C-alpha cells in the first residue's frame, strides 16, 4: 500500500500520507511505478523523509523547488524537518 507521496519528479523528499514507523517499508508512486525505501526513523503523517541521499549544503527539493538546504548529510529514509534543514530565504537579497 502506498504510504508516501512524491509530488514532483525532481523532489528528493517524499511526504508520509500515513504514519510510518522506523524500519517500515515506504512505498510511493514514481510516474506509475511503485518505488520502495526503508524508513530510518518514525515519520509523523504529512512529514517529509528523504528519498535520495542529500549531502550537507545541498538543496532540499519539494514541489520541484528548493525549500531550504540540508544542514547535515541526510540519508535516504531519514526524517527531513527543522532539525536538518534551514531556510534559504535569509540569503535571497
Amino acid at each position: 500500500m502506498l504510504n508516501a507521496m512524491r509530488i514532483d519528479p525532481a523532489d528528493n523528499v517524499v511526504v508520509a500520507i500515513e504514519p510510518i514507523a522506523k524500519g517500515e517499508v515506504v512505498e510511493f508512486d514514481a510516474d506509475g511505478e511503485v518505488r520502495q525505501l526503508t524508513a530510518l526513523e518514525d515519520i509523523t503523517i504529512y512529514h517529509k523523509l528523504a528519498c535520495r541521499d542529500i549531502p550537507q549544503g545541498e538543496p532540499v527539493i519539494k514541489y520541484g523547488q528548493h525549500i531550504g538546504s540540508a544542514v547535515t548529510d541526510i540519508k535516504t529514509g531519514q526524517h527531513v524537518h527543522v532539525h536538518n534543514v534551514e531556510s534559504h530565504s535569509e540569503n535571497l537579497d
Partner: protein
Amino acid sequence: MTFYGYERPDGRVGVRNYVLILPASVCASDTTRIVAQQVNGAVTFNNQQGCSQVESDQQLTMDVMAGYAANPNVYGTVVVSLGCENCQMDLVVKAIQERTNKPLKQVIIQEVGGTLKAVDIAVRYAKEMAAEASLLQKKEFPMSELIVGTECGGSDPTSGLAANPVIGELSDRLVKDGGCSILSETTEFIGAEHILAKRAATPEVHDRILEIVRRYEKALRLVGEEVREGNPSPGNKAGGITTLEEKSLGCIHKGGHSPVMAVYDYAKQVKAKGGLVIMDTPGNDPSSVAAMAAGGAQVVVFSSGRGSPTGNPIVPVVKITGNKLTFAKMEDNIDLDASPLIYGEKTLEELGGELYELVRQVACGRQTKAEALGFTEMAIARVCNYV
C-alpha cells in the same frame, strides 16, 4: 468547451443574473438588507466601510463597490447611500460608470425622506430591474470568457499535496483555453515570491510581484509586525511544514505552471482572456474573494484542508479539499474531494479535468454548496484604522 451565460451591454459575460442592492456605506447597509429581502433575485452585503476612512483606505472600498456593480454576474445595480458619508453617491456612480454601462439607479436616504421612503423607492427600482433581468436568455460562450479566482483558506498539509495542485491544473487548462485565472493572497507568497517572480512574463511583472510583497511587509512593519518571523507557525511545523518557502510553495500551486502576465492591485478591474494574473489581496478569505469578485471573476475556486463555508454575494465559490476526513465530515460545504490524488487513486490530470468540468457546470448555473446554503459573507480590506 463552452458554457451558457448572460451577455452584458459592456461585452462581458455573467454566470449569474443578480440585481445588486449596493450600500455606499455602513449607514445604508441595513436599508439594503431590507430592500434585497423584498425582491427575488436581489443580493446585497453588509458594507462596514464607506465613511471616516483615509483616502487610500476609502479607495479600496470604492473599488470593491464599483467592481461589484460591474461584475458580469450582476444585471444591474441600485446604489443606496445615506447622504453624508465620504463615499458620496456621485463618486460611487462615477466609479461604477467608469467600469460598466449596465443599468444603474440611485437612492439617497437623507434626500428621499428617511428609511421607509428609501426602501419603497429602492424596492420598486429593484423589482423592475429583476423583471428585466428575468427576460434575458442565456447564450453559449467559449471558456475563454471566464475569469476564475483562486483562494485557499483553513489550509492543512493536504492543501499543498492535492487541493492546490488540482486548482493549478484547472488554472493551466483555463489559461490554455484562452481564459484568465487569478492567483491571490500576497501574504501567502512571502517566502516563495522569488520563485513566483521567475515566472513573470516581463521584467515589469517580475518587479511588481516583488513590490507587492515588499509593500505588504512594510505596511505590517508600521504596526510592529514581521511576517517572516514566527512563520511557519509552531502549528505548521507540527503539521510537517519546515520552511516558509515550503509553506508558500503550497499556496502558489493554485496558479499552476503558466507564466504570470500581470499584477493587479486590490479589487482593480482584471482584463478578460489575460492568462494567469496575480491580485494583491490579504490571506483573509472573505476580503480576498471579494477583491477577485470586484476584479470581475465570475467563479472562485477555493481549497480548504479544514473545511470552510465561505460564499460570496455575487460569485459562486467552489470548494475543494485534499483531506478525505474533512470531505467526509463537511460534505455539506465542500464540492469536490481531491484526496484520491494523494492515495494514487486518480491522477492530477483526471482531478483537474473533474474540477474544470465542475467549474463549467457552475458557470452554466449549477449551485455550489455555499450557494445552496445561502452563504454570502464578505469583507473589504483595510489599510489602516478609522479616522
